């Protein structure tokens, strides 16, 4: 079969140097000394001018972390990380607090311009990350952006307008100063400091991230988004995001990430906590495009992320959507604790791996309340020499009567040097729980490809067509601007994977 041979050939030549966001920004930065100790934790807390209780919280996490071991159960393989060889704090140098966006280092502004992330509100008004012709004729939607550059937030847009609606959207470091009570009330209540190795590390050293509070009954007037960028060499990024949707409120939040192309591995260990109170809804979308490493598997981001949502109130809903195309290693399980009666959790995922990427991702749906429902749609695509694992848990507690789950996880293999794995745990402790799980693994049918090619598509277009059909259910869950970007990203990620 010549087509297959060609595929193999292309896979061999696959070059992830097509990574578009691999440039580096040369700026002066303010760094903590390399390595981790109580002093570094104090240094970070001091830099952020944090209240005393926060320092204690971090130190407790740090001491706990010293007793913990890195988890090994995931299907990912990487050389041992030397946690003393990482910078835990790095911030672009600045002399004083910024009064306006004009004072942001022009190099940083340029960086975000190059990434296509609008930090100037008027640009946003003119239209966001528009695809030519794609959104013509529609009023542009507005997106408020919090830009996190290495360890600090460099700009947050639309703060004034959001404030009018009562929505708090700011870097968590600011929130700790301006809304300490809110932060203290919710921080660590979904992902406790002792949760797991990486989350505990994050609790000790997190430097920035976004804080969102939507007051009761408020529908957040615009999409909120955070854009993460790792720039500095040997620097870990440990952001922490906390989103609270108070009773009857709604918020949609987007997250994007990129990093420069570097030979060494960069560590990223984030924690995201979502809390939805009675009748509230949070929609959280991620397009993860950290540097995946080069064609030999050198470099790339180690992405160890703990994301968890707590449907704390009745009738609350949390929906995770993720498009994972980047990172050398992805270790990520955005989960929902369905505590409130009638609450609902959703997980929609596209995970694409190519080159030497390793993905171990999935979700947990923990049904605790009555009549709770959840839905999991996972689409894994493995190409090149990558390994792509779905790992998920659905469980119904004894008291979670009427719990319902539907899970479909499908994997697509492109080429014969990659692996696709499915590891679901389905645990029912109650007879009125109804769980349905299905999974399939297959390759793109040669017949379908031939049919498309016979109708005039190139092999690559045909694969693109099939892949887009395969991931369609999930793409539809993304806010429109992101969906367009994500679709482009998917085709870039798979470039060179087919003949």
């Amino acid at each position: 079969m010549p087509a297959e041979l060609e595929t193999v050939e292309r896979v061999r030549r696959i070059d992830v140097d097509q990574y578009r966001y691999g440039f580096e920004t040369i700026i002066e930065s303010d760094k903590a000394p390399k390595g981790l100790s109580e002093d570094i934790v104090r240094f970070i807390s001091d830099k952020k001018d944090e209240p005393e209780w926060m320092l204690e919280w971090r130190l407790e996490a740090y001491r706990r972390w010293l007793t913990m071991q890195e988890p090994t159960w995931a299907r990912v393989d990487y050389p041992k990380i030397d946690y003393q060889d990482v910078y835990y704090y790095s911030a672009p140098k600045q002399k004083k607090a910024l009064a306006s966006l004009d004072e942001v280092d022009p190099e940083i502004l340029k960086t975000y311009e190059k990434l296509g992330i609008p930090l100037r509100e008027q640009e946003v008004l003119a239209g966001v990350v528009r695809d030519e012709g794609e959104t013509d004729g529609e009023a542009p939607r507005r997106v408020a952006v919090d830009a996190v550059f290495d360890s600090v937030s460099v700009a947050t847009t639309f703060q004034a307008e959001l404030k009018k609606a009562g929505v708090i959207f700011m870097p968590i470091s600011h929130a700790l100063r301006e809304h300490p009570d809110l932060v203290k009330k919710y921080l660590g209540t979904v992902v406790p400091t002792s949760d797991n190795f990486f989350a505990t590390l994050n609790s000790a050293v997190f430097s920035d991230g976004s804080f969102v509070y939507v007051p009761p009954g408020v529908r957040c007037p615009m999409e909120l988004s955070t854009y993460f960028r790792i720039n500095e060499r040997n620097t870990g990024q440990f952001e922490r995001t906390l989103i609270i949707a108070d009773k009857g409120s709604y918020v949609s939040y987007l997250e994007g990430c990129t990093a420069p192309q570097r030979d060494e591995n960069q560590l990223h260990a984030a924690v995201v906590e979502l809390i939805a109170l009675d009748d509230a809804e949070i929609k959280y979308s991620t397009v993860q495009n950290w540097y995946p490493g080069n064609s030999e598997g050198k470099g790339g981001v180690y992405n160890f992320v703990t994301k968890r949502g707590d449907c704390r109130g009745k009738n609350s809903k949390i929906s995770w959507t993720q498009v994972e195309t980047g990172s050398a290693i992805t270790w990520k399980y955005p989960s929902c604790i369905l505590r409130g009666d009638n609450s609902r959790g959703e997980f929609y995922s596209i995970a694409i791996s190519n080159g030497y990427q390793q993905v171990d991702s999935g979700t947990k749906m923990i049904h605790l309340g009555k009549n709770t429902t959840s839905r999991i749609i996972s689409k894994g695509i493995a190409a090149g020499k990558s390994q792509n694992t779905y790992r998920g848990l659905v469980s119904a507690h004894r008291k979670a009567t009427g719990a319902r789950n539907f899970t479909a996880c499908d994997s697509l293999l492109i080429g014969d040097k990659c692996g696709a794995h499915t590891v679901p745990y389905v645990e029912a402790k109650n007879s009125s729980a109804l769980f349905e799980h299905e999974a399939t693994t297959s390759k793109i049918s040669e017949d379908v490809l031939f049919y498309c090619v016979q109708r005039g598509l190139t092999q690559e277009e045909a694969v693109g067509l099939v892949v887009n059909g395969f991931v369609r259910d999930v793409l539809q869950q993304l806010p429109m601007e992101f969906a367009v970007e994500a679709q482009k990203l998917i085709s870039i990620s798979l470039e060179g994977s087919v003949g």
Partner: protein
Amino acid sequence: MNLALVKPTMDGAASDVFAIARDRLPGKGPVAEVRQAAFEDFAQKGLPHRRVEEWKYTDLRVLLREVAPLAAPPDQAVLDRAKKTLASLDVNGAHRLVLVDGAFAPQLSDTTSEAGVAVQTLRAMLENADVAARADLLRTNVASDAMISLNSAMATDGAVIDVTENAAPGKPIHIVHVATQSKAAAFTRSLVKVANGARVTLIESFVGADGAAGYQAHDSVVLWAGDGADVQHIRLVEDARDAANIATAIVTLGERTQYRAFNLTSGGAVCRYQAFLRFGGQNAHADVNGVSLLNGRQHADNTLVLDHAVPNCTSNEVFRAVVDDQAHSVFQGRINVHPDAQKTDARMMTRALLLSDEAEADNKPELEIFADDVQCGHGATTGALDDSLLFYLRARGLPEKEAQALLIQAFVGEAMESIADETLRDVAIATAERWLAARG
């Protein structure tokens, strides 16, 4: 989860089990060395517990607590009790081999020779210094597992069966394990070699004699099925309601081999059946099916690992669990498709029916796929009986229990239907009917 302290070694009691039994274990020299090494492996691991991924849902440190001492060799009184038990267990026309408390009982077994079938006992082979490879009888090629190691260390007897090339014995071979002693453990290993082109049915039954309580049956079966062989393998676990049954099957298939397995668990307090099946030749097919019927506080675990190591093989797994009262069903199924095992077609469907609010079912159907031109899928469902079906039946005049029984029978029927041999299918169906009748 990282802070857990895992007890690395066994306490004194378990070591004693081996030390006390050692002199009674057949085989000297190389055999004793294999036993020693196997026991050290077990002692180092200890009883499997929930932090051992493969035993996540069956924590033997909680469920079994300890390994019971080796059962005494059967005397005449014991054999008489065993004989009474056998009366209710006759599978029409089968060639019966009986192991009582872990010792082959020739008095109770069918010793007539049959064309194409040679039967020896494991004990005799282990003790026979002329058998050069006798120590290999206690070795396995399966990834390290504490309970396999324990079985290798302690195995006292079993059937060693050779089915010659192209033989097609008219009778099924029926290995019956009878336990008579309370709070004692039997350790058995049987080895079955089905040569190329042979056709055979193997049945295994596990039962307890009247009055036998709290015993442990530790068994393993190592089965090779050659090219073009056709093997039917039926297991019926009907142990006493407070007994434990920890069993392993290690199956290797040749080219064009047909292997059809069915495991029915209705007895025992704690049952674990782990089957490791490896496709060693192309164009082979395996059906690995099972039904668990559980109530009271029964715990039954079916763990199946299928290795598609070569191209062009197909497998199908159908598993059903009916779980009542506070019982707990576990199904773990892993399908490994090795690199280059192209054109593999592997399916797995597991369904659990929960009849009580305190029943529990855990399913872990895994796919590990390293080849691209494959069709693999699994499905898992858990739920109660469908109310609309129940109402339909009751509106047609069926009392509640009868309506439930009909739906339960239909639920397990799909898996039962896969038993090709009609007599054996009837045996399985009769077991299900007894279980349903006992539900009242």
